């Protein structure tokens, strides 16, 4: 009998199928629409900003919407798409074919990453369009303030979108890892949201490490800080909104960090899924 090797083609097929399924799910489509509305809605908040300039405020609120709704998408999509297959038992028909469980997990993650890439690209493009439109209006109204040309850094905006995608990818991989042993999609989603908050606050563990005196507590806090990735690292939108440029080194470092964690979480998902009773 012919040996069946790990196949990127099958991974791509599963990823494509997962993506197609995701874009047809009403909940996910509604989520994307709400996020787009929120990015567009940043315009209505522009009179509400106190300290920052209008364009920076738009950038901030727009990327806030991408982060917030992207995080929901990165948690809900893998939980529903993976656990849905388990709950509906359709995973049995896939794995009854010459398909490795690792191919299934990586394919699922690939589909979700593709969904998140489309989401981040579309939202960043929408935000960039919005900022460009407002900037054109402001340039006409206050030409003296724009003597040196446009102020918004569109290339940095694109890098922000990339950083958001990397962060959401790590979150999706983490949720998929939970889903690989979770009994229900609800549990996977709850755990995903908990992990999101924990990863956002990972740096607090470092704070406490510096403060806590007890040896055991210090050890515990040190371990906690070690187990989770630090999502604060990906908040580059703030730097860009503040007018700072991002170096290629920073983006490269972030990409390596994100890819390493995606690999770790998907590896753990494969490990758990291989031992799971179906």
């Amino acid at each position: 009998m012919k040996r069946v090797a790990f196949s990127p083609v099958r991974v791509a097929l599963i990823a494509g199928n997962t993506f197609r399924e995701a874009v047809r799910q009403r909940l996910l489509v509604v989520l994307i629409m709400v996020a787009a509305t929120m990015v567009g809605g940043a315009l209505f908040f522009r009179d509400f900003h106190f300290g920052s300039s209008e364009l920076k405020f738009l950038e901030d609120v727009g990327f806030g919407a991408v982060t917030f709704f992207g995080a929901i998408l990165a948690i809900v999509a893998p939980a529903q798409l993976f656990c849905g297959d388990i709950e509906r038992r359709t995973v049995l028909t896939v794995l009854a074919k010459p398909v490795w469980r690792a191919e299934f997990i990586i394919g699922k993650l690939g589909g979700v990453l593709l969904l998140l890439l489309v989401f981040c690209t579309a939202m960043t493009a929408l935000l960039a369009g919005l900022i460009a439109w407002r900037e054109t209006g402001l340039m006409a109204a206050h030409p003296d303030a724009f003597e040196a040309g446009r102020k918004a850094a569109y290339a940095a905006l694109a890098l922000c979108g990339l950083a958001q995608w990397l962060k959401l990818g790590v979150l999706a991989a983490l949720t998929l890892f939970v889903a690989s042993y979770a009994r229900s999609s609800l549990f996977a989603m709850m755990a995903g949201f908990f992990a999101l908050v924990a990863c956002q606050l990972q740096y607090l563990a470092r704070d406490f490490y510096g403060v806590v005196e007890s040896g055991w507590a210090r050890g515990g806090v040190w371990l906690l800080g070690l187990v989770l990735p630090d999502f604060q690292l990906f908040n580059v939108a703030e730097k860009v909104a503040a007018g700072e440029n991002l170096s290629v080194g920073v983006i490269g470092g972030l990409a390596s960090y994100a890819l390493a964690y995606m690999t770790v979480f998907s590896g753990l998902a494969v490990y758990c899924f291989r031992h799971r009773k179906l």
Partner: protein
Amino acid sequence: MHAIEIDGLTRDFAPDWRGAKVRALDGVTLRIHEGEVVGLLGPNGSGKSTLLKIILGLLAPTAGQCRVFGVPSDRVEARQGVGFLPEAPDFSPHLTGFELVCFHARLGGMARAAVKERVEEVIARVGLGEAMHRRVGTYSKGMRQRIGLAQALVLDPRLVILDEPTCGIDPSGAAEISTMIRRLKMRGGTVVLSSHLAGQVEDLCDRVVLLDRGRLVLQGSVAELTRRRGQAALLVDPLPDGTLGELRDWLQAHGVGFHGVETPRTALDRVIWDKVGRGEPAGAGKS
């Protein structure tokens, strides 16, 4: 050659973190030959689904061995040439039937160029030609079962494993599926059919395997198992009045024991099929 070889298969489950082990399969040994249609019978909890999952490599045995076409079932290679229809499949409602079967065909290694024609052919054969471009979410339970069968058959597998294939399907749909199983058998395919319906198994299978509480308690050909030893039955036209006594006297005179008279019955699903049937089941006799 054996399609499936099972030796001393045992599988234990721990129901919860402190519970005692539950033995789902207990030393099952079984051989299924290529080209055979085998019915797997047994009450709920008898171990049928566990046995099927081990054959498909979805579950590892606690002890014993299972080989599919000579390859240990836990290896991915063992699943080449295997088609599987799970019980009451509930495929993604967002894909069309065509997309679903295409996905499974490509996943099984079918060349892209051949997929469209083959998928359309197999979907038409299960009677969903008209509905193949509709989303699975709009399908009835019976249609979902049929599209499940299409995905199981699309790669033209040597071994087909069907778990309760007619569960929840109307008699005409059940008859169509039965026809498809017969066609598979005629083409030399091996079929393992898990069912609650003894009548269906009797109708379709060469051999029956009965499981109870994880043990294989009975196996043999349908003819062997259903034959009443030392008895014979005659089917005759309705007897005119008074002839029954004469017949009984004659039989006794020739030393043949007489046990009674029964009116032959037709299976109810056959009656329903004759009433509501739309001619021959779709695709019958076209294999």
